[in-house]
């Protein structure tokens, strides 16, 4: 067992939450984007997370239970919002423009969840560190 195992898991969690925040920012920035290198409007993206075993944890009993997290993939939302804007250069012949399916309120809610999750992991890290430091103070 290693106190650094908790650190490794915290690190993976923080990386995952950072990636989620990156994707949310990207969705917010591209809320009106109608042109992409692949063609068509920007597609709303979401991060899919997967559990990952941590090398050499606690021993056999907890080996199966303790998991870090990793970014499995980035899913794309293929749906588009059709908005009537005949003056837009990307409007079709009926005057409708395909806009990304980004809902500002949903993205803000996701952002709050992500930042709170990040804070929770930081708190877990601090608690682990304090445990280690308290252990070193033992017997003084």
């Amino acid at each position, binding site marked *: *067992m*290693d*106190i*650094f195992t908790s*650190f490794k898991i*915290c*690190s993976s969690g*923080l*990386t995952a939450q*950072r990636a989620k925040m990156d994707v949310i920012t990207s969705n917010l920035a591209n809320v009106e984007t109608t042109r992409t290198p692949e063609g068509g409007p920007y597609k709303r993206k979401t991060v899919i997370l997967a559990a990952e075993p941590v090398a050499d944890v606690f021993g056999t009993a907890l080996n199966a239970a303790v998991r870090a997290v990793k970014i499995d993939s980035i899913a794309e939302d293929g749906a588009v919002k059709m908005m009537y804007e005949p003056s837009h250069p990307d409007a079709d012949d009926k005057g409708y423009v395909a806009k990304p399916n980004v809902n500002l309120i949903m993205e803000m809610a996701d952002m709050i969840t992500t930042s709170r999750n990040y804070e929770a992991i930081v708190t877990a*890290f601090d608690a682990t*560190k304090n445990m*280690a*430091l308290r252990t*070193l103070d033992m017997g003084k």
Partner: protein
Amino acid sequence: MNDMLIRGGDLLPPSLHTPKSTVEVQNEAKPFSSVLKDAIADINKLQVNADETIAKVQLGNTASIHEAVIALEKADISFRAMMQVRNKIMDAYQEIMRIQV
């Protein structure tokens, strides 16, 4: 230093020495000085690792801030653990030096 043998690898936390050295210490009572040297080398490696991560963050490469901070904390905790070991050794040494002859 050979007369100060420490039997059993329980002095240092498991993270501070490699499994190889634990086995050796338990089997053939490795000199204490080399256990300490191994531990210091491991801790130094963590410090160097923390430095490298910070350099990466400053250069805007792959590493992110939290990785640098976590590397620093790892280095900090292992250094503190080493200092505790050192304090115990110094206590023992001073105790021996106080013996009246």
